[in-house]
């Protein structure tokens, strides 16, 4: 997955550099040296770049180009992060395989429909991978970027905070959608778990709303993380119990009424419920759980408001 993406990225970059070289004739320009390792970086004399020919910067090409630029580098950063790679890509697949392998022959009831546990686990793990990709990753990476001064340095550039946040959010949605597609493909190919087209559409909508909501919550919780060391425990302490009471690991049908109502207070239950509903319905009208989407959106908006109030780009250990 990672290697495929980085291969594609490398190919794309080579093609771009090639096109760039062609457009300026024989004179070497900034960025072209990657293609010729022998001369890479030995730029002891300033290179002559004709400003008429050099590619304008992302900022100079407008808002959309700048956003794409930010998304691209945020994706690159998260793909190259071993922790994110493990927890976002590898871990959900392992859980899907383990749960389906161990419990796959059992049955449960989802919204009144009797289903195999293999069908039950797919939407649950899907919800989980979104929560991990959006919430866990952002809490850990934002608090660490803030405490190491990276956010402060980015904020010192002309790029607007909205652009930085939007770039991060879109990159997270892209990761969540790619991961969701991968999980659904594995479910279909390995376990024969199929979703209706309407169910898939509903899952897509739930995934986008859920990712954005959990990204907001991730930003909000990162405010509460004082040191990067505390990020991982805080993430685990807030996520782990919810897997059990939100119908991700254990069907909610088997939970006590108290546990179920505790679970429904938190957003994990709502993204899991939305995904479960989509997995057993075949018309768009019934596959979309409006209540769950509203609950997710409410959490997201509340978290965003908290961020607007308290979010800081500066390290919390800033001295006078």
């Amino acid at each position, binding site marked *: 997955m990672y290697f495929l993406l980085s291969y594609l990225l490398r190919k794309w970059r080579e093609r771009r550099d090639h096109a760039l070289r062609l457009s300026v004739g024989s004179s070497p*320009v*900034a*960025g072209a*040296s*990657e293609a010729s390792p022998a001369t*890479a*970086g*030995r*730029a*002891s*004399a*300033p*290179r002559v*770049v004709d400003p008429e020919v*050099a590619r304008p*910067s*992302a*900022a*100079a090409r407008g808002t959309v180009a*700048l956003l794409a*630029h*930010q998304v691209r*580098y945020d994706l*690159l*950063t*998260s*793909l*190259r*992060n071993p922790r994110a790679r493990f927890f976002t890509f590898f871990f959900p697949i392992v859980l899907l395989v383990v749960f389906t392998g161990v419990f796959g022959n059992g049955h449960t009831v989802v919204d009144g429909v009797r289903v195999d546990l293999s069908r039950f686990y797919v939407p649950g793990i899907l919800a989980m991978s979104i929560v991990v990709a959006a919430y866990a990753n952002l809490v850990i*990476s934002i608090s*660490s*970027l803030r405490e*190491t*001064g*990276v956010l*402060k*340095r*980015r*904020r*010192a*550039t*002309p*790029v*607007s905070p909205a652009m930085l946040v939007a770039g991060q959010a879109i990159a997270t949605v892209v990761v969540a959608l790619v991961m969701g597609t991968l999980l659904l493909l594995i479910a279909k190919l390995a376990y024969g778990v199929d979703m209706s087209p309407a169910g898939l559409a509903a899952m897509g909508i739930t995934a986008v709303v859920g990712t954005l909501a959990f990204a907001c919550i991730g930003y909000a919780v990162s405010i509460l993380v004082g040191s990067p060391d505390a990020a991982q425990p805080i993430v685990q302490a807030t996520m782990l119990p919810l897997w059990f009471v939100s119908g991700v690991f254990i069907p909610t049908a088997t939970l006590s009424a108290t546990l179920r109502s505790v679970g429904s207070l938190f957003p994990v239950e709502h993204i899991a419920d939305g995904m479960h509903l989509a997995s057993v319905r075949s018309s768009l009208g019934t596959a979309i759980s409006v209540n769950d989407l509203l609950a997710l959106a409410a959490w997201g908006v509340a978290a965003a408001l908290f961020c607007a109030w308290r979010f800081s*780009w*500066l*390290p919390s250990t*800033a*001295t*006078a």
Partner: protein
Amino acid sequence: MLTNSFDPPVAQPLRPSSPSVSNRNDAVISIRGLRKRYGDTEAVRGIDLEVHRGEIFAFLGPNGAGKTTTVEILEGFRQASEGIVEVLGTNPWRAPSGWRERIGLVLQESQAEPGLTVRECLELYAGYYRSPRPVDETLALVDLGEQADQRATALSGGQRRRLDVALALIGDPELIFLDEPTTGFDPSARRAAWKVIGGLRDLGKTVFLTTHYMEEAERLADRIAVIAAGEIVAEGTPQTLGGRQVGGARITFALPNGTAIEDLPASVGDRIQDDGAGAVALPTTTVAADLHALSGWALGWGFELEDLEVRRPTLEDVYLKLTTPNEPRS
């Protein structure tokens, strides 16, 4: 001057007005009566500063003296409680993004962008500016061309700091803030960094530098200001700071064997300070006369003046005197 014959002659008198304004006042940073309070404590207590275009300005002070607060106000990260702050003609607090196109920052503590190579870091930041410097040229400027394709997190401390400088330069700013740029460097890395910073002057940049290393300030700065307990206690060139050029020197030497302080010539004898270990010190404002008296005395008796040294106060001496509390400030 090229004139278009179709231009109405009326347009001409309007022309010279705009450049003359910027020529008259070349202040890049201008601070008047700046105060910053955190709750009950006042970190900055009414300071005035002016930094001119093209100079390297060193801002010195012990930790907790209000140095970082002042720098962060200038960088637009904190709001002044009182006073007028203008950086490039704009109040940095809530300055438009166009203002940020014109400044570059090397923060006191900032790690590399995780996961990106040196070149990618620069490309990421180059994308934020409307007309950035070419990436390769900037890498060459900080001598990181060889490391372009290494992960930024794998660089040595000195290399990472040079990457920070490159990131501050990528937007081709007019004004660069360097907050303790060489802290934790080994001597050779420090010298390499000084070369880079000195090079900024040649590029016509204005540099606002903070440092704890007096040698650094002395070597790089055109002007120095010292802040202590939230107030500017001295301002001047490295040579004149705190009256350094007119202040007294110290002559030290070892008393020749078999002599005592009473044996020294009377003109110096009453000012001499004894450290009890055979070495004596003579604070003086008349170095030539005192040296003449001492050497004449030694020659007359056939002594050698061992360990003879004349020391002017170093910048560090001046700085310590200025910033140490409970000592009269001269």
